C-alpha cells in the first residue's frame, strides 16, 4: 500500500504532533512497510467471517462485565488539579477555545 508524505502529515496533525521533514519521510516508509505486511492477510479467504473487534465475547463467557450503579468517593480537588500547570478557581485553565465571529 502506497503512503504519501501528505498522509503522514495529516495523521500527525490529527494527533497534534509536529515533525521534521526527514522524520516524516521515515514514518512514511515505516507506515508503508507495516501496511504492506498486514496486506498478506488479504490472501486468506475471509468472506463470511465477521470482523473481530474483540477476542472474547460476553455470550461465549459468563456475562457482560458490568458495574452496579453505586457512587464511590472521588478524588479531592487539589489532587485532581495537582498536575494542572495553572489551575484557576478550582478549574483546569486553558487558552480560550471559542471565539465569536
Amino acid at each position, binding site marked *: 500500500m502506497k503512503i504519501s508524505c501528505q498522509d503522514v502529515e495529516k495523521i500527525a496533525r490529527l494527533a497534534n504532533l509536529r515533525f521534521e521533514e526527514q522524520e516524516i519521510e521515515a514514518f512514511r516508509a515505516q507506515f508503508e512497510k507495516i501496511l504492506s505486511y498486514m496486506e498478506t492477510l488479504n490472501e486468506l479467504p475471509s468472506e463470511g467471517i465477521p470482523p473481530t*473487534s*474483540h477476542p472474547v465475547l460476553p455470550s461465549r463467557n459468563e456475562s457482560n462485565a458490568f458495574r452496579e450503579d453505586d457512587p464511590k468517593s472521588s478524588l479531592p480537588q487539589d489532587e485532581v488539579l495537582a498536575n494542572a500547570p495553572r489551575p484557576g478557581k478550582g*478549574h483546569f485553565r*486553558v487558552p*480560550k477555545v471559542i471565539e465569536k465571529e
Partner: protein
Amino acid sequence: MGYEAIMGLEVHAQLLTRSKIFCGCSTKFGAPPNTNTCPVCLGMPGSLPVLNREAVGMAVKAALALGCHVSAQSIFARKNYFYPDLPKGYQISQYELPLAQHGQAEVYSGERSAAGKIVNRKLKKFRIHRLHLEEDAGKSVHDLAEDTLVNMNRCGVPLIEIVSEPDFRSSQEAYDYLDYLRRTLIYIGVCDGNMEEGSLRCDANVSVRPSGREAFGTKIEIKNLNSLRFVQKALDYEIQRQVQVLTSGGQLRQETRLWDENNACTYVMRSKEEAHDYRYFPEPDLLPLEIDAAWLEEIRARLPELPEAKRARFVSQYHLSDDSALFLTYSPFMADYFERAWRVSGNAIATSNWIMGDLTRDLKVFGREIDESPVSAENLGVLVKIVGSGQLSTTMAKQVFEEMFKTGESPESVVQRTGMAQISDEAELQRVIRRVMESNREQVQAYRGGKIKLLGFFVGQVMKETRGQANPEKVNHLLKRELESS
C-alpha cells in the same frame, strides 16, 4: 420562489443514574468544580472503564419507548478529537453497531397560526435514525476574557444520543417532536429533561431547498439550543437567514452556528480545533455489549403508559377535549393528579376545569409544580363533589379553594371553619324570605301589583341576609311561591 425547510434533531439526554457510565463518581449536578472526578473520568494512564449496568438499562428503556429495534450486540467506539473538556483525547461512544436503530415518535403536532396559537393538531410520525450510549464531556466555562476554565464533573456522565431522520418541515414540528421526546424520557424516568441545566441538549441540522426540488440544500448545524423556545426561535431565524442568502444570489457554507439569545440570531462558531476526522475504532477496553431477550422483555414489561397513549386514553375514557387531554397528560405527575382527583369526584370535566383553571393559575403564582401542590388531588376531588351536590355555589367553592391552597386544609374543614356553606334547607330559607317580605311591605305590594321586576330586589335582600350563602335557585323558586300566594 418558495423554499422548503428540512430539519433534523440530535438530542443528548443525561441518564438519571447515580454514578457515571464508566466509573463510580457521582453524577450529582452542582457539586464544586472537579470534585466528582477520578483517574478513570480524568483519563489518567492505566485506568480502565467498567460499564454501569443501570445506564444500559435506562438506554434500552428509552429505545423501547421510542419504538427502536435494540441490537442484541452493540459495540463501543472511540471518537478521537482534541478538546480541553475531553481529557482522554477521545470520547467513548458508539458508531457502527449502535445500541438501537429505526425508531419513531408518534407526536400530536400542530401548526402555529399568525396569532401564535397552535392549531390543526394531528398525529404525525417522525422517524428516529439511531439511539446510542456515550459518555458526556466536561464543561468549559468561557466567562474569562483570556482563558477557558474546565470542569470535569460532567465528564463521564452517561448520555444517550437520539438522532432523528430529517423529517421536520417546520420549526413547530421540530418543537413538538423535541417536546414529546422530553416528556417521554421524563415519563419513563430516565432523564429529568432539564434543558436549562443541560440534562437535555439539542443540536439541529437545517437546510432549505426550492419547493419541489429533490436534492437537499447545504446543511447547517446549530448548537447551544438550551430551551424548547430557543430551538424554535433559532430554527425560524436560521430558515429565514438561509432563504435570504439564497434569494439574494448568495451561497451557503456548511458550518456550525450557535444561537445567541440576547441578540436573537445565530452566529458562526469558531473553534481552534477543526479536525472533523474522528477516526472511530472499536474501544479495546470494553467488551461488546450484549442484551439478551430476557433482559429486553424485563425492561419492556416495566415501561409505563407513554404520553401519547395516555392522551388518547384520556380522550376516550374521560371524554375530554384533545387540548384538555394534552394539558392533563403533559407530565406523568399532572396525569396522576387528575386521575386521583377524578377517582374521588367522579366528574372528569369539572375536575379538569379546576386543575386547568384555579389550580394551575395558583401554582404558577407561587412557582410550584403539580407534585408540590398544597391542595392534594383527593381534596380537590372532594371539593368538586361538594359543588356537584349543591352544598356550595361555584363562587363559594372558589373561595374555599383559595383557603385550601393557602392552608392545605380539606374542603370540609374550610367549610366548617368559615361557615361557608350553601343554605338549601327550604324551611330555613322560608324563614329568611318571610323576614325580608315583612320589612319590605311596600315592595311586596308593588310586586303583587305587577312590578315583577322587583324579584331581583328580593333575591338580593335574601342573599344579603344570608351573607351570600343561600342557594340562588331555591331562593328564586321559594320567593316566587311566597310572593304570588297572597
